[in-house]
């Protein structure tokens, strides 16, 4: 197994803000790593360091066997970056943007043209290809932006929230495309807030809190570890929530908190069906009437919420 991307004890501060405090990551060649975390966790900071846009304060980052601080130029020859913000020239057409980046990557002119046509087609931009980008919709701009980061067929691709602003069809197409890339051996670091996306695409997932890794594993491992099932209780009255939480906490997997949002209380459990009757009885004993109750499979959203719950409380300043 070859490690395509590795960070060791990576630290970065912006003034008083500690964006990264000792992050260790490793991505095997040809796999997708999904990087999850609340806003301000430091995902973009990691991507920017790996893409040579930002120097770490300390620690090491290696891409394709090359140190990003010592030899940024060689790293750049191996990577493609789709940043969180789109990076296109609005005055050029889509086609010109692609060819221009191809030339800066020193592709032969003919090869640049061939790949441009292919990418325009793959990203459903053939018709718009000869229009100035400023006439594009947001989603079209994003698709072009991603295409531009792939024109040199880089071995390692960083995608920072690539599907933000894409419609469902565009997002599905993008998922197919990313799957295709990895089957071709490309290594991908993907950050996303759509956990379904991480579930579908990522071979491994790293969940970050503010500045550090909270946990990692395959999507299934994480779901198992954080409770394979969820029992979800819907109340008539929000005021009953704390009573219900108290009643249900004993049923929760030890160490995992019962979640609560508005009128819904969610309990992580290993096996739903066995516990459900007892839990209903416990709620009944507390004299609370229920609107609905049921067992469901855990999703990555559950994992994310449960893991980042305490983190968000620790957060320096985040809108609630």
């Amino acid at each position: 197994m070859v490690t395509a991307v590795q960070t060791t004890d990576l630290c970065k501060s912006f003034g008083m803000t500690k964006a990264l405090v000792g992050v260790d990551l490793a991505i095997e060649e040809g796999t997708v790593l999904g990087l999850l975390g609340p806003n301000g966790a430091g995902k973009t900071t990691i991507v920017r360091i790996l893409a040579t846009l930002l120097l770490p304060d300390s620690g090491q980052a290696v891409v394709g066997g090359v140190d990003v601080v010592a030899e940024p130029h060689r790293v750049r020859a191996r990577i493609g970056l789709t940043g969180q913000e789109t990076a296109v020239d609005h005055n050029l057409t889509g086609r010109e943007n692609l060819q221009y980046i191809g030339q800066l990557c020193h592709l032969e002119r003919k090869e640049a043209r061939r790949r441009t046509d292919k990418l325009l087609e793959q990203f459903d931009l053939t018709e718009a290809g000869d229009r100035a980008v400023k006439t594009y919709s947001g989603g079209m701009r994003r698709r072009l932006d991603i295409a531009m980061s792939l024109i040199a067929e880089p071995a390692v691709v960083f995608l920072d929230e690539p599907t933000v602003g894409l419609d469902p069809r565009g997002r599905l197409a993008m998922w197919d495309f990313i799957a295709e890339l990895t089957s071709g051996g490309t290594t991908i670091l993907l950050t996303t807030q759509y956990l379904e996306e991480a579930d579908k695409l990522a071979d491994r997932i790293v969940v970050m809190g503010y500045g550090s890794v909270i946990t990692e594993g395959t999507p299934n491992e994480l779901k198992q570890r954080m409770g394979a099932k969820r029992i979800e209780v819907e109340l008539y009255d929000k005021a009953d929530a704390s009573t219900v939480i108290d009643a249900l906490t004993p049923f929760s997997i030890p160490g995992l908190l019962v979640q609560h949002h508005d009128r819904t209380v969610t309990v992580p459990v290993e096996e739903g069906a066995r516990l459900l009757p007892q839990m209903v009885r416990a709620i009944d004993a507390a004299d609370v009437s229920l609107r609905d109750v049921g067992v469901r499979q855990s999703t990555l959203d559950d994992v994310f919420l449960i893991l980042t719950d305490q983190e968000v409380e620790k957060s320096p300043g985040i809108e609630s």
Partner: protein
Amino acid sequence: MNRNPTEKKTDTENTCSSTTADAASTAVAVNAKTNRCRDVPHGPLWILRDSWTEALRHLRILPRTVDLMIFAIFQPVMFVVLFVYVFGNSITVPEFDYKQYLLPGIFAQTIVFGSSFTGAGIAQDMAQGLVQRLRSLPMSQSAVLIGRTISDLIRNSVTFVVMLLVGFAVGFRFNGSIGDTLVACGLLLGFGYAFSWIQALIGLSVSSVETVQSAGFMWMFPVTFVSSAFVDTQTLAGPLHWFADINPFTIVTNAGRALFNGQSPGNDLWFSLIWAVAIILVFCFLSVYRFSRFNR
């Protein structure tokens, strides 16, 4: 880079899983290809090539932003008309017909003002995030700035030609030899190129496109007006006189004016060349340095 096939570890439930052998064999193919196409270039030739790619990007959109160009020319044309026909009779300069005196100054001013496009362009590239992408590409990083200044030099040359035509229309004539005239044109454009590097540093230093427009423009008014471009510096009072005389813009204007009028520019030619080269060296260094420090 390691080209060994890797064993792909996939989740059974993962949609992107494919057969291991398949993935591995294509991985080798892709990586081999990647390595072949993307060697790591360096050296002056690559800087030139990347700079030209960058310059072409800017030049390509010139025809699409003709309105910008038209308004950039409109302003100096108005100056010509105002100064020649409104002030022309009340301003007198020793030894010269005022038109022959004024127009080289306006040419120089137009070219120096034209350099402000550099700062605005760089600020715009940063605002649209493009600079981020460029900094992650295996290209020469200074090419981003060199390409920009070169394209603005070409843009300025076009403006200059239009200004010359306007000058002829109001009665300005070249009285020097062809050689003198060409040297004068080259000198003015070279000076504009030097100012492009000052603007590049401003464009890299301000926080928004809106700021660069005033930050890049404001200081050029005193520099071009407190000079010999419009009036004889002898007529200026105390500190203004002193500033006008040491102002490099005065020196380059005097050199250009002498050459256009068939007189000897004397030391002004050499001093203005030294100024231009010095500005280019200092501000090129500072801009490239600033650009490279963005990753801190």
